[in-house]
């Protein structure tokens, strides 16, 4: 029963989203009521026609015409209101899904980077789009079906009462019967449906894995064994589908039709017996038969939507789980406001760990004076990137303090920090869109002139101009058509367009084609001028003129100084330098 409780919680939360739409929702309900009323009036009018005119065989023209007009008016309004209610419900449902989608997207994008490190992108994409799409089905298909069916059922019963209260009361017997059928069906279908779904995903999992690992399968000649395994799952899946099929064949449409047949038998029996003692109006019999058929359709609709409903609740639950995961990016957490002026960066005894167990930075202290360049070098995993991750306030650190112009970084507004601290990433991520879009990156305050200026400044201009559409060139395949050097230049331009006070550079590890290499170096030099720069360098040749070079090893600064003094020290830096110059000689 615990499962049900959870299901209810999810449904309640989904329903809460409708609060914002109480007005359009009420309107949709009015449409639904009008449509249902107009639809149900039809058989009633036909009954009047049969009993008043056809049976006695008299047709007073004006009455017949009035009845016909009323029927047609009601018929047309039923069509119109039916359309209106359907479209209104669907529109509201789509808007709600849009709200949920925005909520989860905004929520996810506000999470700290650690969350993204941990959660595969595919999972997030699937939550934000596919699961919300399943929720859409829930609203558009299921919920409106449930509401419409319920109203139709109720309306039909009301008309039955108007026609013949005794019989309508007898008809109430159907309610527990319906309830019983739905209950039994649900009880088994939940289980069977889950089995089919699980086996299908197992089947697809096996297939996917076999395709990916076919090389190994063939190398070890295990084809037959895997085919056998696949056959087993395939067989189990087939059996599960048979069970499901049997259940559906027993308890869905056939049983509803059977019940309908017996209801009609009961109805005819009632009137038949009645007719032996008193006069029965055949129009009522006709109307009753029409109504009773209409009771059954909504029940069938509901039953057929049950499995879809359960699926959607599972998806909604996953969406809500993410919405409940609260890991906001570290933001402004200290009182007071501060501005970044000259751009002095100071690390004081900073210790940091991603997982709270292993310290990846230990007691790091250094100062980058305004306009100076501090270079970070070291092997992979030495802690260079972590220093950048802290300075950009992507991760909260455990102890020590990082200040800019004497203010702890926790004191800056998000906008101030992002505007003044520019980060150039190792592998510049290019978005779908034009080059100009990529340099602006959605920011409308950066105009085309500024884009060009920035591109010229970093010398990206020359290659962009060569493109057919220039800055309007559409970036394809995440920029794979550009060389790594060109991508780097675009990333520079993106940062320069924002004119930061402090520059953080994460140099590309991949080698850059010699043609662009020179331009990259020149651009770097120009960018650094007048800006405090913290640079991760993979190629030591690029940072020989740095004011301070920090050599990191296993989270500690093991050597510090400028290029010459470090070479004189004859330590790790010197070895690295030799290694790289040797490599250069060889290539």
């Amino acid at each position, binding site marked *: 029963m615990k499962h049900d409780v959870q299901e209810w919680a999810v449904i309640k939360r989904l329903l809460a989203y409708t609060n914002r739409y109480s007005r359009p929702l009420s309107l949709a309900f009015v449409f639904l009521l009008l449509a249902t009323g107009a639809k149900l009036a*039809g058989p009633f009018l036909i009954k009047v026609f049969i009993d008043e005119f056809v049976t006695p065989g008299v047709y007073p023209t004006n009455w017949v015409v009035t009845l016909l007009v009323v029927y047609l008016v009601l018929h047309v309004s039923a069509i119109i209101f039916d359309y209106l209610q359907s479209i209104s419900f669907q529109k509201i449902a789509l808007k709600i899904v849009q709200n949920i989608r925005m909520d989860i997207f905004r929520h996810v994008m506000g999470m700290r980077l650690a969350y993204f490190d941990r959660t595969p992108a595919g999972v997030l994409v699937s939550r934000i789009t596919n699961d919300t799409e399943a929720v859409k089905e829930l609203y558009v298909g299921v919920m409106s079906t449930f509401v419409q069916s319920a109203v139709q059922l109720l309306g039909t019963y009301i008309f039955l009462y108007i026609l013949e209260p005794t019989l309508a009361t007898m008809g109430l017997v159907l309610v527990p019967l319906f309830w019983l059928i739905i209950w039994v069906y649900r009880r088994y279908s939940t289980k069977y449906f889950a089995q089919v779904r699980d086996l299908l995903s197992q089947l697809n999992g096996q297939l996917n894995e076999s395709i990916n690992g076919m090389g190994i399968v063939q190398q070890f000649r295990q084809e037959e064994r895997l085919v056998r395994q696949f056959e087993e799952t395939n*067989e189990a899946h087939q059996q599960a589908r048979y069970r499901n*099929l049997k259940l559906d064949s027993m308890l869905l449409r056939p049983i509803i039709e059977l019940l309908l047949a017996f209801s009609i038998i009961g109805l005819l029996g009632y009137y038949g017996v009645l007719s032996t003692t008193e006069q029965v109006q055949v129009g009522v019999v006709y109307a009753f038969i029409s109504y009773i058929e209409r009771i059954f359709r909504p029940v069938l609709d509901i039953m057929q939507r049950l499995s879809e409903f359960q699926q959607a609740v599972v998806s909604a639950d996953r969406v809500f789980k993410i919405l409940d995961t609260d890991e906001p990016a570290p933001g402004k957490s200290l009182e007071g406001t501060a501005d970044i002026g000259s751009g002095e960066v100071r690390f004081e005894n900073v210790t940091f760990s991603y997982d709270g167990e292993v310290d990846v930075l230990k007691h790091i202290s250094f100062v980058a004076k305004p306009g100076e360049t501090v270079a970070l070098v070291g092997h992979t995993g030495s802690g260079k990137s972590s220093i950048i991750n802290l300075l950009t306030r992507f991760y909260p650190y455990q102890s020590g303090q990082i200040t800019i112009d004497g203010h702890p970084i926790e004191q800056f507004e998000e906008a101030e920090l992002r505007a003044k601290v520019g980060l150039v990433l190792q592998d510049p991520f290019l978005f779908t869109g034009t080059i100009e879009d990529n340099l602006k990156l*959605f920011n409308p305050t950066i105009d085309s002139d500024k884009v060009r200026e920035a591109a010229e400044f970093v010398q990206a201009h020359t290659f962009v101009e060569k493109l057919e559409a220039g800055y309007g060139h559409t970036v394809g395949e995440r920029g794979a058509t550009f060389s790594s050097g060109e991508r780097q230049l675009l990333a520079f331009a993106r940062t320069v367009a924002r004119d930061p006070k402090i520059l953080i550079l994460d140099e590309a590890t991949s080698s850059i084609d010699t043609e662009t290499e020179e331009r990259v170096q020149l651009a770097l030099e120009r960018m650094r001028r007048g800006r405090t720069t913290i640079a991760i360098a993979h190629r030591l040749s690029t940072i020989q003129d740095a004011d301070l070079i920090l050599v990191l090893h296993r989270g500690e600064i093991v050597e510090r100084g400028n290029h010459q003094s470090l070479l004189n020290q004859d330590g790790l830096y010197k070895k690295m330098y030799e290694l790289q110059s040797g490599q250069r000689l060889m290539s």
Partner: protein
Amino acid sequence: MFQIRVFKQLAWFFKLEWRTYALGIVLLMFVAALELVPPRIIGRIVDEINRESLETDLLWMLLGGLAAVGIGNYVARFFWRYFIFGASIRLGRMLRSQLYRHFTDLDQRFYKKSRVGDLMAHATNDVQAVSTTAGAGILTLVDSITMGTFVIITMVTTISWKLTVVALLPLPIMVALTTRYGKLLHNRFGVAQAAFSELNDKVQESVSGVRVLKSTGEVGRDVDSFEKLSDEVMAKNVRVAKIDALYDPTIFGIVGLSYILSIGYGAYLIEQGELTIGQIVSFTAYLSLLTWPMLAFGWLFNIVERGRASYDRIERMLAVKPEIQDDPMAATKLAHSEIEADIHAFRYDETPVLQDVTFRIERGRTLGIVGRTGSGKTTIVRLLTREYDVHDGTIKIGGINIRQVKKSLLLDKVAVVPQDHFLFSDSIANNIAFGKPEAKLDEIMEAAKIAEVHEDIMRLPEGYATLVGERGVTLSGGQKQRISIARALMIEADVLILDDALSAVDAKTEEAIIEHFRAGNPDQSRLIVAHRLSAVEHADEILVLEDGRIIQRGRHQDLIREPGWYKDTYDRQQLEAIVEGGGHHEA
């Protein structure tokens, strides 16, 4: 309507299942015929009631007849479903198995060309669509034709052809309208789907580029742009809903029109003495039976269209043949497993990848191959396992050209540990015993010990029973590589090939593994392809490849003395080891 061709394409299946289909179709027709009875009985009773001449005996008889029809229908409905949908489930299963078996037959060249997603789509969506064609497709085809003709014939012969013509007048409008909606819906749905996949890409991009967005402070604007896109998706879905919402009102409207026509004109016919009220009531009941066949025809078109496209894709897929096939005269036994390679030239397309590469691997000896990325090392491995065939030159095993050796025999003799360490979602024990599923645990442990991974495994929560892969623990690249090595050791091949399979293993562990090899099976010969020279230090011969040619060959001790690539690389790697150790030689 030539899409119906798919039924012809599936003729083999219908032949195979002809009994089930015959039964199902007979039952379907039986149901259609039975459905014609109740309206007649109802009409009769209504007439009797109207004439106030209903005898109780007759009433019970008629009601008994209704009950019998109802129950008969229930049983027949259950069984036709079971037969027809059951067959469609079986078809799905068969196609899935066929595809899977076919996938195991295709070679690595095929897999390099294909995308996993496409292959998966064949076995999921396409199989589903074809299976639906054989189930719901057959159902709608048979049902709409039999039901439609039965009902119309009954209306004409038992009630009135004039009334039938008048009542059916509006129905072609319904067919025309719903067909039109179908087309519109298809188009708009396509547009909405495209917008949805754009949204999907957008999310993918935002999540992947989250660092850039955060560091430029543009998350908020990115959310805005997502909102715009998401709004668009909603608007396009509303356009779909606008068409979708037309169906019910249209059907209701047109069917209602038919009703009013039949009742109005029917009243006139009653006045003329041509009909009774009961007949009108029967007639309207028949009319309601016609709605479904009319709608089904539109459906049928959709189902069959999808089914045909999908079946074409599946057939094309099944027609793909593996490029390398066994020679019918191929050897099934080898005297020994000595390898002699004499490759004059090999190319994948235009540029030669290997030129004049000759070597021998004698029993119990080790050959090392080194060289930079793209020098042709892996190509040699591919040729030895006949992923590709050499046309200019020969490779012999046991003195026989490998093209004249049964591929399964070759794979039995030669075990490869590939660069990409693929593990299955299964326990570690099963992964190691992949090529020898009957192996005992101590055998598995023995192999794991040789591959230096036993202790890592023992540290895992469930030891050898620990699950790996998607749903299991995450192993490091080095651990996965060593498990792959253990897996290859299990099959005790005469020749073991390590294709850069130690790259993620640290130097010390690598040394231990190589040491185990040397101390192990003295009859096994080995080919070690490596980046790190320490892996081939003890090889009996080392080949240095560059641009597909052997530029140096000899033993380690000799090669480090002669100037050239080997010595340069050796020196660099020594230095690298020092840098990695933080400037000191690590013990």
